[in-house]
C-alpha cells in the first residue's frame, strides 16, 4: 500500500537469480536443506569445480527513472562462526560484472547472464550449531539511493564427494565397570558413507546391574578455534534404541542402524582452519535407576559419489541392503 501511494521510497527494482545448466535450461539438481526451525528449503546443488551459470533478471518496481553505477554478481564462499557473528570469513570470492552503469529499466530489458567456470568450492556447505559454511551468489546494484534492497543473495549448496577411504578395521572394544558390567561391542566398520548401515553387535560378558534399555546415539561434535581457544559443541543427531529389557550374561544384541534417515554430513577436519565436524557412535546403556553408562566411539563419515549406475543397481529388488549387510556380518 505504501509502495502504491509512493509515500515511502521503495526499492527501485526486484532482482532474481536463475541458475541454469549448461544447455540453458533451468538448473535441476537441488538439495533439501533443513533450516534451524525445522523448515526445509530447496537449494541448487553444486560440487567443487562445477560451473555455476545462470542469469539475473531485473524487474523495475517503479516507473521513475533510476540510475545505477553498475550491476555485478559475486560468488562467495563464507565460513561464519557464531562467536564472530556478522563478520563471515570469505574463503572464495569471485566477481562478474553484469551490466555497465545505466538506468535500471534498460538493465531490465533482458536477463543478464553470468558464468563462473571451474569454481573452487572445496568445502561442503554446512549448517551447524555454531558454525556454518555457505555459498551464495550476491547480485548487487550500486548507485545513488541504492539500499540493501538492491542487493540480492542467492544461496546455493555445495556437496563434494569423497573417494571412498581405505578399508579400516572394524571397531571392536571391550569395556566395562569392574565386577559390574562387561561388554564387548563391535561396529563392522570405522568409516561409513552417509547412506550406509552400521552393523554391529554387543556381547554381554558380565551383567550385574539391571539394565532397562540400550541405545546407539549418533553425536556430532563441532570444534571451532584451535589450541587453547578451541571450543566444542556437541549435538545428538539420532537416538536409536537397540535393546529393550535386561539381558543376561552371554546374550548378544544385534545392531543395525541405517544412517540415511538422519541429517548427517561427512566428517570435516580443519575446514579452512576454522572448524571441524566429527561424528561419534555413542553406545548408551540405561539401568533401572536411569543411570547411564556409555561408550563413545568416533566414526568417519564420508559422502559417496552417487554413481548413477550404482544407484540403479541398488534399486534392484532382489537384494535388500539390510540383508546384504546382515549376512556379511554373520
Amino acid at each position, binding site marked *: 500500500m505504501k509502495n502504491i501511494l509512493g509515500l515511502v521510497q521503495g526499492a527501485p527494482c526486484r532482482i532474481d537469480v536463475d541458475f541454469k545448466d549448461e544447455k540453458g535450461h533451468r538448473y535441476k539438481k537441488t538439495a533439501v536443506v533443513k533450516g534451524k526451525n525445522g523448515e526445509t528449503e530447496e537449494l541448487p546443488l553444486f560440487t567443487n569445480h562445477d560451473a555455476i551459470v545462470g542469469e539475473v533478471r531485473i524487474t523495475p518496481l517503479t516507473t521513475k527513472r533510476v540510475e545505477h553505477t553498475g550491476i555485478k554478481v559475486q560468488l562467495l564462499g563464507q565460513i561464519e562462526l557464531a562467536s564472530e557473528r556478522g563478520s563471515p570469513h570469505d574463503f572464495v570470492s569471485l566477481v562478474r560484472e553484469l551490466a555497465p552503469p545505466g538506468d535500471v529499466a534498460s538493465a531490465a530489458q533482458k536477463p543478464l547472464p553470468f558464468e563462473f567456470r571451474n569454481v573452487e568450492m572445496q568445502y561442503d556447505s554446512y549448517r551447524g550449531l555454531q558454525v556454518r559454511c555457505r555459498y551464495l551468489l550476491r547480485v548487487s546494484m550500486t548507485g545513488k539511493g541504492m539500499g540493501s534492497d538492491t542487493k540480492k543473495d542467492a544461496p546455493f549448496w555445495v556437496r563434494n564427494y569423497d573417494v571412498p577411504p581405505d578399508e579400516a578395521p572394524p571397531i571392536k572394544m571391550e569395556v566395562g565397570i569392574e565386577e559390574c558390567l562387561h561388554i564387548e561391542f563391535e561396529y563392522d566398520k570405522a568409516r561409513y558413507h552417509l547412506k550406509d548401515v552400521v552393523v554391529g553387535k554387543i556381547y554381554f560378558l558380565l551383567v550385574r546391574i539391571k539394565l532397562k534399555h540400550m541405545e546407539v546415539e549418533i553425536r556430532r561434535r563441532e570444534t571451532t578455534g584451535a589450541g587453547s581457544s578451541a571450543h566444542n559443541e556437541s549435538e545428538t543427531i*539420532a537416538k*536409536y534404541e537397540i*535393546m*529393550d529389557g535386561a539381558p*543376561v550374561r552371554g*546374550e548378544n*544384541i544385534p545392531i*543395525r542402524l541405517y544412517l540415511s534417515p538422519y541429517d548427517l554430513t561427512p566428517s570435516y577436519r580443519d575446514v579452512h582452519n576454522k572448524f571441524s565436524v566429527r561424528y561419534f557412535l555413542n553406545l548408551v546403556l540405561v539401568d533401572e535407576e536411569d543411570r547411564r553408562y556409555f561408550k563413545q566411539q568416533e566414526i568417519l563419515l564420508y559422502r559417496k559419489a552417487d554413481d548413477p549406475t550404482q544407484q540403479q543397481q541398488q534399486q534392484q*529388488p532382489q537384494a535388500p541392503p539390510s540383508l546384504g549387510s546382515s549376512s556379511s556380518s554373520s
Partner: protein
Amino acid sequence: MEQDAEAAQFLKEASLSVKKNAYFMRKAMDEDNLREALRYSAAMLGELRTSFLSPQRYYELYMQVFDELGNLEAYFADEQSKGRTLAELYELVQHAGNVLPRLYLMVAVGCLYIKAGGARSSDILKDLVEMTKGVQHPTRGLFLRAYLCQRSRGLLPDTGSPYAGEGGDIHDAVDFLLTNFMEMNKLWVRMQHQGAPRDRERREKERQQLQDLVGKNLTYISQLDGLTFELYAGSVLPRLLEQVVSCKDELAQQYLMQAVIQGFPDAFHLASLDALLSALPELQSGVKLHAVMASLMDRLARYAASDPSVVGQLLERHAFEKFVESISKVAELHGDIPAVSLVEMYAALMRFTEGVHPDKLENVNRVLGACQRGLAGKGLGGDAKAEKQLVALLSMPLGSRDAVTVLSLDQYPPLMGLLSRRTHKDMALKVVTTTLAQGTCVSSLESVEMLFKFIAPLVQEAEDDDDMDEEDIEEEQVMVARMLHQLTAPTPGLQFAILRAARAHLELGSPARLKHTYPALAFCGLKALRRLNAAQQQQQSGAAADADASADANGAEKDAERAAPAAAPAAAAAADAAGDAVDAESALQWLLDVALQLAEVPAPMQALRLLLVCAHVASEEAGLEMLAYEFFEQAFTLYEESVADSRHKVTALQAIVGTLHRCYVFSADNRDALTQSVTSYAAKLLKRADQCRAACAASHLAWQEPPAAAADGEVAVAVPGRQPPVRDAQKVMAGLKRALKVVAAAKQQRAATARGGKGGAQHLPLYVEIVNHYLYYLARGVESMSVGVVQQLLELVGSELSQYDADLDAETRSYWQATQRHIQCLKAADPDKYAGLNA
C-alpha cells in the same frame, strides 16, 4: 488389590491409546500417507512397551494391537502394488527409533516380503529371529517372538512348501523355529529370576500362563512336513534337550518335556527313547519326573495298543528295561526325591508293562522290586499321597490277573509292608476279595506262604490296632475265613500241608481273630479228611482189583497210596510222595489241636461243636475209636469246665447227645462211660424242663438205629471197627422214667410256688413230649415199651391236661392235638399193634 485396580486402569488407558493411534494410522493409510501410517503404527505398537501389565493383561493389549497390525499388513501389501518395493519398506520400518515397534513392523513386512517372493524365506527369517534379540524383556520378548512365530507360519521353507528350494530347505525351517524356541525359553526362564523373591509364586503362575507361547514353536516343528525321523533324532531332539536341560528351570523343564512327549509322533519317541530318557536324570530335582515318565510310558503304551507291531519294537529296544534303569538313575541322582513321585513313576511303569506286556509277570515283579529298593531306607514318610499311589501301584497287578499269579510276586509283600498299618490292611483285604471274587484256588504250599505274607496285617496284630471293635474284627476275619476255603490242593496230603502252613500263620493272631478263622480252618481240614478217606476207599477198591489181577497186593497198596486220583496233577502227587502224605489219624490229631486251641480262645461252644463234629468223623468216617473217644472227652471237659451259661449247656448237651447217638465206633465200656456222663449232665441241668428234655434225649443213647445207608451217589464208606447199634431197652425206660419224675417234680414245684396264671403250666408240654418219645420207642419196637405202658401214660397225661385245661397255652394244646391225630394215624395204619391206644 489396589495394584490390580491400577493395572486395570492402566490397561484401559493403553487400550484407548492403541485405538486412537490405530485410528490415525488407518486414516493415514486412507490418505495413502505411508510415513504417517508408519508413525502412528509405531506409536500404537509403543503401547506394548509397558512393563506394567501382568501377562494376562498384556495379552489383551497384544491381541488388540495384533488385530490392528492386520490392517497395516494389508496396506503394506497394497503399497507394493503401488511400486514401492517391499525391500524398501523393509528398510523403512527399520528407521523406527524404538526397538519394540520396529521389530513388530519388521516382522509384519518381512513376512509379506517372503510371501511376495521378494526374498529368500530363510534369509528374512534368519534376520528376524536374530534382530528380535533386541527385546530382552521377558514378557515383551515372548509376545514379540510369538508374533514372529505366528506370522511366519506357512512361510517356512518346509519340504513341499513354495518357499522351499530357492528360499532354503527344511533345515532352515527347523533352525528358525528352534532358534526362536530357544530364545523364547531363555526369556521365559529369566522371568522367574526377575523381581522380588516374595512374588515368586505369582510369577510362577504368570509364567504358566505364558507356557503355550513357548510351546507353540515345538508344535510348529512337529507339524513340519519335512521333519523326518533322521532330522528329529539327529538335530531337533538333541538341541531341544540340550536347551531343556541347560535352562535349569523346573517349570520350563516340566512343561517342555511334556510338550516334547506330547508334541512329536509316537514312532519318533519309540526310536529315540534312549536320548529322551538320558535327559531325565539331568533335570532339576523339583521337576515332576514321574509325570513326564508317565506321559511317555502312557503314550508308548497307547501306541502299542493301537499297533501290535509296536510291542515287538518295544521289546527289541528293551523299552521296559530302559525305563527301569532310567527311574532308578533318577532316584539315585535325586536322593531327596519325594516318595510320592517315586511311587508315581513306578506306578506309571507298571501301567506301561501291564498295558504293553500283560503276559510278562516278571516285569511286574521287577517293578515292585525296583520300587521297594527305591523306597528302602526312607519308606513313604507318612505321606498320604504316596501311600495312595502305592496302593494304586499294588492294585494294578490284581486288576488284570488272578490272585495266585500275583502271589508268585515275591517282591509284593515287602512293598506292601511299607504301607501304613491301615492301608496295608485295606490292601490285604483287596487281595483277599480279589481271590474270592475270582474264585481262585490257591493250591501250592509256596503260594499259601506268599498269600499269608500278603495278608499278614489281617492275620496278625499290631500295637496300634486298638481302634478295632469286635464287629470290625469279625467282618475282617470272616473274609480271611472265607479265603481259607480257597486253599485247595490237588491232593489231600498237600492240602494238609497247606492247612498246617495256614494255621502256623493264623496262630500268630490274637484269640479274637482265631475265633473266626479257626472254625473255617477246621472245616477245611474236615473236608480234606473226607477227601482223604474217599481217596483211600477208592485206592483200596482199586488195590483190591489190582491185587486180584497181579497178585502183588503188597506193592500195590503203596503204589495206590502214592497214585493220586486221576485228576491230581503229577506235581502234587510228587509233593505227597516227598513226605507230605497224611493219614486220617494225624489229620484228626491236628484237628483236635485246632479245636483245643479254639477252646482256649475262649470260644467253648464253637470248640465244643467242632470237637463233636470231629468225633463223629473220627467215629463214622475214620473208625478210630480212641480218637473219637478223645474228642468226646475233650468235649465233655469243655462242657464241664467252660460252658457256664445254662442255655448254652442245654444246647451243648443236645449236640453231644445228637453226635453220640450217631456214633457206632465205641465199645460197650467206652460208650457207657460217655452215656453215663451225659445222663448225669442231664440231671444236673438247672431248669426242670431242661432236665426233662435232656433226660428224654439221653434215653436215645441207649437205642441206636442201624447207621443210615449212604445216599445215592455218595461213596459208601465202609468204616472199620464199627460196632453194632446199641439196643438197651432198660436204659431207655430208665431214662424216660427219670423224665417223668422230673415232670412230677416240676408239677410239685408249681404247686409249691402256687403261681397262678398261664405261665405256671410249664410241665404240661413236657408231658406231651414224653408221650411222643414213648410213641417213638413203641414204633421202634423197644421191648419194654408196650401199648399198655403207653396207654397208661396217655391217660395220665390226658387227666393232667384236663386238670389244667385253663392254663393250657395254644401251642401245647395244638401239640397235644397233633399228637392225638398222630395216634389216630398210627391206629389206622397198623390197627393190630396200636389197638390198645386211646388218646
